[in-house]
Structures are given as C-alpha cells and as structure tokens.
C-alpha cells in the first residue's frame, strides 16, 4: 500500500520536475521505476495471500494517500468533492477490511487458518474421547 502511494508520489514529483529542471529527471525516473517494481512485487504477494476482490479495493487507498500527500506536502487545494471521494474509498475499504464476516470469506489465508482450527478441535475431540 505504502509503495503504491509512494509510486504515485514519485510520479507527481516527476511531473513537477520535468518542466523545471531537466537534469534531475533521470534519478526521479529511476526511483519511480524502482517504486513501481516494489508496488508490483508487494501486489503479487498480497494476491498470493488474499482474494482479488479483497486486495484490489485495498490498493485504492493509494488514491487517498496521493490526495493527502498532495494536500499536506505539496500544499495543493483538495476540493470538497475530492474529500467526499476520499471518504467513500476509506469507507469502502473499511467495509471489507473490518467486520466479523471476514472469516467467512474464503480468502485462502483465512481458509487455511479456519481449517487448522477445525483440525485442532477434531484432535481435541479425539483426545478427550481417548481419555474416556
């Protein structure tokens, strides 16, 4: 998530510097590409652990981060409509990330955990039967 936001930050800086100082263009491009690669690697890792419908909305927090960076680091004006957009994304991500229903989703990670718990309870049941 952070790398996603950082990636976009890199892009912003790129746009800012492009017209002003051509000499610093290359390092920024290099950093931008590196951060893009980092984003892609972490995205792949997340996909190996969770559902696409879980990971993708979560990556949209990058948009929120981007807007916050624009507001507080670059001192850009963020319109009320965009604040509403930030609120909607945050709400949407909170909707899937939080909430007790998460365990019922067959995200492979949670699935493995629940299977493990089931195995454990079965083992306990067998053990207690053995005692009797």
């Amino acid at each position, binding site marked *: 998530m952070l790398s996603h936001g950082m990636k976009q930050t890199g892009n912003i800086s790129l746009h800012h510097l492009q017209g002003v100082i051509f000499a610093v263009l290359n390092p920024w491009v290099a950093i931008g590409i590196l951060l893009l690669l980092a984003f892609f690697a972490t*995205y*792949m*890792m997340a*996909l*190996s*652990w969770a*559902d*696409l*419908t*879980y*990971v*993708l*909305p979560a990556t*949209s927090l990058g*948009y*929120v981060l981007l*807007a916050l960076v624009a507001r507080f680091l670059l001192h850009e004006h963020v319109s009320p*409509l*965009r604040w*509403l*957009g*930030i*609120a*909607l*994304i*945050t*709400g*949407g*991500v909170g*909707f*899937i990330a939080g*909430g007790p*229903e998460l365990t*019922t*989703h*067959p995200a*492979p*990670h949670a699935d*493995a955990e629940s299977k493990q718990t089931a195995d454990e309870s079965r083992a306990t049941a067998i053990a207690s039967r053995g005692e009797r």
Partner: protein
Amino acid sequence: MKNVYTWSAIFAIVFASVVGDVLLARAMKQVGDVGALRRRVGLVAVIVRTLGNPYFLFGVTAMAVAFFSLLFALSWGDVSLVAPAAASLTFIGNAVAAKIFLHEKVDRRRWIAASLVAAGVALLAG
C-alpha cells in the same frame, strides 16, 4: 465520433486490466503463499516460479495492453474523463470477473465495498 473512440479505448483499458488482474490473481494462487514458499525454497526460487508461471506472463501482457490503451484513450479524450471512468469501471469489472472466473465469494459486503471504492475513485480522479 471522437466520443466513440474515447469510450472504446476506455472499455479496452477496463477489459485488458480486468483480464490482467484475474490472470495475475490466478497465477499467484497457483504459486501459493509467497511467505511460506520463501521460507521453504528461498526467494530466488519464488521469483523464478512466479515469472515462469504462464498465467503471470499473460497477465503482465494484458496489463501492458491496458497501458497502451490508456495512452490511446488519452490521445482522444480528456484525462478528466478517461482516468476516473477507466479506474472506477475496472473495480466493478474486477468484482464481476473474480466471481465468474476465480469463483471468489463476492457477497453483499464486497459488492458494496467495490461500488463505494469505484464511486470514490471516480470523484478523486476526476
């Protein structure tokens, strides 16, 4: 006529990036838990296994197609239309595709989340 071009390009972006995301997700499900795999066989083996996965290669290709479609769309339409439209439609398209092709359990909670995020992205990117 320019509108038709722009919207065709937008749909091309959405289609290609949805296909790409679904293929990448399937690839990573095949590769398995990256953390556990790295502890077992090492980082290099994980990278090799991921890069060698056919779904991964097709997924990356689809992502490249999506990127070039974006360039086409931007040459025909305004960025204030193309960026939010493509981004938010991708979220909805992905929810549908993940349900159909990845058999993910997309329940009401996830539909609402996808819609909220799509609306939010449309507002932010616009």
